[in-house]
């Protein structure tokens, strides 16, 4: 079968958008079990079971070792990179009592306070954040 991890059809221009992961079909395949695990947390009894023993609960899904570690360590950016989607992941961070803003902040390299202040100041500006070349020009990663 064809290689399942490389996107064969780059979306025109998309790869130039900085700091952004496109949740397309190939990502969805890669993260299928991560996302299905998250969906299971929509039931109170499953949340209780997960909280009681996270490692044991996770064994129900054929996750990769990397995915397992990212989930247990609540490494949200890594979960995204491994095929998780933020709306699926929201079931996990809601189980933890965390908000979308908390989780988004962890992916930006800012502290919670810095991120909250950036939003109060009108959010991350679009100028300088449109393309990878703009990021390179100002030395962001």
């Amino acid at each position: 079968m064809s290689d399942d991890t490389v996107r064969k059809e780059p979306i025109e221009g998309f790869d130039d958008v900085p700091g952004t992961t496109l949740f397309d079909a190939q990502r969805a395949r890669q993260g299928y079990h991560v996302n299905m695990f998250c969906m299971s947390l929509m039931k109170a009894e499953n949340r209780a079971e997960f909280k009681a023993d996270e490692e044991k609960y996770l064994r129900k899904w054929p996750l990769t070792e990397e995915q397992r570690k990212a989930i247990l360590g609540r490494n949200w950016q890594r979960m995204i990179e491994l095929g998780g989607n933020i709306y699926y992941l929201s079931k996990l961070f809601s189980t933890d009592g965390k908000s979308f803003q908390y989780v988004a902040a962890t992916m930006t390299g800012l502290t919670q306070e810095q991120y909250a202040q950036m939003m109060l100041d009108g959010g991350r500006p679009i100028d300088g954040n449109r393309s990878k070349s703009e990021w390179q020009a100002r030395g962001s990663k």
Partner: protein
Amino acid sequence: MANIVASVNVSHVPAIGAAWDNGKKNDPYWQPVFDGFDFSKKWIAELKPDVIILVYNDHASAFDATIIPTFALGCAPEFPPADEGWGPRPVPTVIGHPVMASHIAQSVILDEFDLTIINRMDVDHGLTVPLTLMFGQPAEWPCRIIPLAVNVVQFPPPTGNRCWNLGKALRRAVESYPEDLRVVIFGTGGMSHQLQGPRAGLINKEWDQQFLDSLAADGQTARAIPFIEYVRETGSEGIEMVMWLIARGALDDKVREVYRFYHVPCSNTALGHLILENASFSK
């Protein structure tokens, strides 16, 4: 005959629901958000729609990764609020309109839209937050609601043009329904926001205002925006705005801008709100 007389476009940020449900609506952070809907509450209370067609996206709540419908129309008698990981929101169950919904489904499928019909579905914040903003906290929602769920989570979403044309087909469907019913269509989601990655927190006020301007005019500029522009200019989750195009497509070419509200920040998001009435409509 039934008639779509107006559209209500509004962001559906989950934090708004959480703030309301947890009694924080008068906190300094949230009060300006809810105040922004004072006019709208009065407007819709006076308009008294019989039915709302509520265009929203499911955020991996009703549909898991096993099935991803592009357009899914809710034909069930009722739709309970979903448990998104912290228990269902304490809001009334949404009462549908199975007969009208089935009529719409039939009409748009015969118009060559490849709809998925849904006869059981929980509805998440994407549908319930706009109701909270527009109606507050009644014991029951004041009218019947037909949910239309659009895939904007997994690429590719439907194109803006397809959404616009679905709006036109919805209008034809409503206008061929024999009962005299006043219908309002909601387009929800947006505006600029990105919830993931190092670019999270992106807001693009200028772009958002241009989008609102286009909808308040004839909408044709907005209709032609490609996917890549939404992602680049408005963030990975800004693509939700294609749902506003379904609502706009269902209106007259000429509309009246009745109300506009724009507020930053709302959690990670620019909250946008626009009420349009058909130019042909008079109360």
